[in-house]
Structure formats: structure tokens, C-alpha cells
């Protein structure tokens, strides 16, 4: 294939992909584009309801607990850890893709294992957070937190929180499953025999997208 991309190249004259990527990778991009609209719709509906409300619970009051610290007041503490874990797992994934380019089978497997560990760690954190909030009385349809101005809040806050972080967590879960499938193929030598590790790249795209969505969820629920 042509790796040299020149400005004069006629991309649409046939004979090669006008996007310079394989079919599978392009379709992964388009899937992620559609998924971005799904998450975008969820977050925008959250924003609309929040703009519609005269007051809203203060995230610094709601998200202030840390496992093992009892009633210590640590606003943003735990979610910072979760964010760090997810960024880190994105780095290990990109290192796996990079090792795949150089066909270093052992390194691909090693970085994929780290990515899976990161994904499971993130999910465990989320499980703890959900359990903790549940015991504080928060769930779909139930909101124990008062608004920032002291008035009673509706369950809009908890409904959106659990729906959107839950939908994101579901994506992380499928990402971990995909990573495990890919890892087993790497270990079996499937991609070594195929001659390339493009499958790692495709799943990598999905994994980075999950990280990308978290960046927005983090801002919308914990910062704003």
C-alpha cells in the first residue's frame, strides 16, 4: 500500500481506500461517531433538565467520600482516582497498539493485560461509588441530596447520574470483554499468523473512546 501521503494524490480515483484506512477501521470510526451522538444526546438532555431547574445538588457535597476514610470529607478525591485509572489504561492501550505495529507479540500481550487490569479497576471503583450512593439513599427515582440553595431536589439528578455513568460503565465492561478476546487471540498467535495486529488498533479505538466519554462525564457531573 501507499504509506507516503502526498498532497497531489488522487484519493477518489479508485484502486485504494480514499480514507487511507482499512474497511474495518473506518467502520469502527463510524460506529464511534454514532455512539458519540448517543452519549451527546444523553448529556445534552441532562444539561437541558439542569438548565430547566431552579437549583441543583452541589457535586462537591454529593461526591465527597473515599473508600476506607469513613466520613472524611474529600470532595473530588475518589473521582480523581477513577479518572487517573482510565487515562492510565488508555496509555497502556496505545502502547499495546504501538507494540503491535512492531509485531512484538509479548509486549502487545503485556500492555493488553495492563489495560484489562485498568478497566477492571475502574469498574470496581464505580461499583464502590454506586454502592456507597445507594446506601446514602440515592437510586433511580430517589434523591436524598438537597439542592445547592437548600431546597428539596427532585430525582432528576440521580436519574441522570445513574443512567449516564451506568451507560458509560456498560461501555467499559464491553471494552474489557473485547480486550480479553483480543488478548486471547494475541496469545494464540492469531494476529502473528495474520501478519498484522490491526484488530488491536480497532479495539484500541473503542477503548480510547470510552476514555473520551469519561472526560465529558467527569466535567458534566463532577466539575460543573
Amino acid at each position: 500500500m501507499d504509506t507516503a501521503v502526498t498532497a497531489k494524490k488522487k484519493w477518489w480515483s479508485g484502486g485504494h481506500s480514499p480514507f487511507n484506512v482499512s474497511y474495518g477501521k473506518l467502520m469502527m470510526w463510524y460506529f464511534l461517531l454514532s455512539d458519540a451522538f448517543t452519549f451527546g444526546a444523553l448529556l445534552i438532555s441532562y444539561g437541558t433538565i439542569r438548565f430547566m431547574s431552579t437549583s441543583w445538588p452541589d457535586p462537591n457535597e454529593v461526591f465527597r467520600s473515599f473508600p476506607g476514610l469513613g466520613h472524611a470529607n474529600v470532595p473530588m478525591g475518589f473521582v480523581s482516582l477513577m479518572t487517573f485509572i482510565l487515562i492510565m489504561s488508555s496509555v497502556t492501550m496505545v502502547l499495546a497498539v504501538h507494540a503491535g505495529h512492531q509485531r512484538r507479540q509479548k509486549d502487545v500481550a503485556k500492555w493488553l493485560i495492563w489495560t484489562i487490569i485498568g478497566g477492571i479497576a475502574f469498574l470496581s471503583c464505580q461499583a464502590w461509588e454506586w454502592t456507597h450512593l445507594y446506601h446514602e439513599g440515592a437510586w433511580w427515582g430517589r434523591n436524598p441530596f438537597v439542592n445547592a440553595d437548600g431546597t428539596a431536589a427532585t430525582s432528576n439528578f440521580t436519574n441522570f447520574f445513574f443512567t449516564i455513568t451506568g451507560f458509560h460503565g456498560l461501555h467499559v465492561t464491553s471494552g474489557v470483554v473485547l480486550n480479553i478476546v483480543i488478548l486471547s487471540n494475541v496469545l494464540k498467535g492469531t494476529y502473528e499468523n495474520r501478519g498484522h495486529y490491526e484488530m488491536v488498533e480497532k479495539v484500541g479505538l473503542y477503548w480510547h473512546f470510552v476514555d473520551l466519554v469519561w472526560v465529558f462525564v467527569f466535567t458534566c457531573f463532577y466539575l460543573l
Partner: protein
Amino acid sequence: MSNTTYTDAGHDVHVADSSTKTIWKTFWILLAITVVEIALALIHLETHFPPKLLVNSIFIGLTIVKAFFIVAEFMHLGHEIKNLIMTILMPLLLFVWFIIAFLADGDSWKNMRKNLAPGTPKPVEKVQVIEHGEGHHE
């Protein structure tokens, strides 16, 4: 051309070092931005110093910077050809419209709920005299 357009093996070997360097550089940028965001949130919580509107604008700005680095470097979109970049980014412009339209809608609902809630005194200054003669066609 029966094969895919996958970058053939060994192509990246000569740029191995600079690639890994870029990955870690991106990681440090993302980490630094996140730390700044959290620090800013805590400073605002303690001192209320930067006004809420300014803090929120900074958060949204930094979020977009983070998104740019993840998409451009980790997802490698910055290194793809322009055709592909445009086919991904152009549809996302719809979000500009979505966000403006829906948030304005929510805001308008809030104002109606405030002003028209039972027991709310009627805002006298808002009553306008209906003028006749405005419906003329030119």
C-alpha cells in the same frame, strides 16, 4: 490490492522512539489538565474566588483540550489523512446547534416555571400594550 490498506509491519520501527515519547507526552498533558481542573474546583470550593461562570467556562475549555489530545494522539486521528478527519469531525458540528438550542430551551422553561408558578406575583413591568396596525403587509 487484495490486501487491506493496513500499514505494513515494520513501517513504524524507525520512529519507535519518537512515538513512545509522544504517547507519554500526551499522558502528562492529560494528567496535568486534570490536576489543574481538580485544583481549580477545590480553590473555588474553599474561596469562591473565581466566579462560578468563569470557572465553568475554564472547565469546558479544558475538557475540549483533553478531548482533542485523546482523539488526535491516542486515537491517531491527527495523523490520518484529511478526508478521514473531515468525515469524522464535520458531523460533530451538529452538536453546536444541539447544545445551543436545547440549553436555551431549558433556560426558557426555567423562566416560565419561575414567573408563572402559582402564587408568583404577576410581573407588571412585562405587560406590554398590544399595538394595532403591526400586521400590515408591505
